[in-house]
């Protein structure tokens, strides 16, 4: 279904519910994995994902079609995930970066992590990066998003994103070589 058609149905009270189920079907998985890579914990990703869709349902009228629906959803998911990390980190009086590193350190004992040693080290490497570089790396490398798509989500120029990605890869390589 075309973006515009789906949005029109979502914004129409008569067809909203059915259209919303379509939206869930299309975007539930990609949004979940995007959120999961930010918050690490499955339970947190579950909470954030639900909040995202509930927010989308209640605020769909505010979507003006200036960007793609997909970009809008991704942006909401990104903001919700980052807000969640900040909220959680405040509870223990540490920074969101430190919280994420702590979570990644305990990934091996996580029931919902089945990665090998390399995957674990990669997650640890990514967690060392600044927030923006983490997002760019995850979206481009794991989610296979184009720079043009990431640009729309993060509201950053493609040039800046490419530079960000380049620096991220260098730091990851350096991290992996040291260990």
């Amino acid at each position, binding site marked *: 279904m075309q973006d515009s058609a789906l949005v029109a149905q979502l914004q129409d009270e008569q067809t909203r519910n059915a259209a919303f189920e379509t939206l869930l079907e299309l975007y539930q998985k990609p949004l979940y994995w995007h959120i999961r890579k930010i918050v690490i914990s499955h339970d947190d990703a579950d909470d954030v994902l639900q909040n995202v869709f509930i927010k989308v349902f209640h605020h769909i009228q505010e979507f003006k079609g200036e960007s793609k629906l997909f970009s809008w959803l991704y942006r909401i998911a990104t903001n919700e995930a980052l807000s969640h990390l900040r909220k959680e980190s405040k509870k223990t009086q540490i920074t969101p970066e430190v919280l994420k590193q702590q979570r990644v350190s305990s990934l091996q004992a996580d029931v*919902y992590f*089945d990665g090998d040693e390399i995957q674990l080290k990669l997650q640890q490497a990514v967690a060392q990066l600044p927030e923006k570089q983490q997002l760019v790396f995850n979206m481009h490398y794991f989610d296979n998003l184009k720079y043009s798509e990431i640009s729309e989500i993060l509201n950053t120029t493609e040039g800046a994103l490419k530079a960000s990605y380049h620096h991220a890869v260098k730091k990851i390589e350096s991290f992996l070589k040291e260990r």
Partner: protein
Amino acid sequence: MKLNRQHNTPSKQDSGFVVPENYFADFNKKMLLRTDLKNSVEGFSKERNTGFEIPVNYFENNRIEILSKLHPTAPKVRKLTPRFWRVAAISVALLGLTYFLKTPTANIQTEVVVGETDIKNYLETDINLSAFDWEQLLSSDFTFDPFGSAELSGDEMAQYLAENLSAFDYDDEN
């Protein structure tokens, strides 16, 4: 010179070279493994996932949970419209009117039967009367006469007057 075009049989080129049985079938598997190891040595592979896992049927359950939060199944409450209330009020008024019109006033009991015990209990809360007085009050022969006559002798009358009248009253000279 004839070429061997049967690709699914062990190849026997004109050169006379042969390959082991299932060689080409196993070749692909070997190459994939080797590529995998190579990538492990280098660091990471783009084809590999993140290692994150999810519970079984997570996405289906999550979908149901989201939908139930947005559309909770509350018990159906029929909203009563203003028209309903109007009709209900008129019906009640008509019923009430019908009842009062049909029922003769003589049949409406207004008397309350009060027993002697009830009267006694009521009066006992406020009025402190002796058992004799209660007997008198409740008796049908009782006639209330606050000025009931009593036969007094001359001495009794003199004593009463002495007790109740002051010296001032006696003194005619004042």
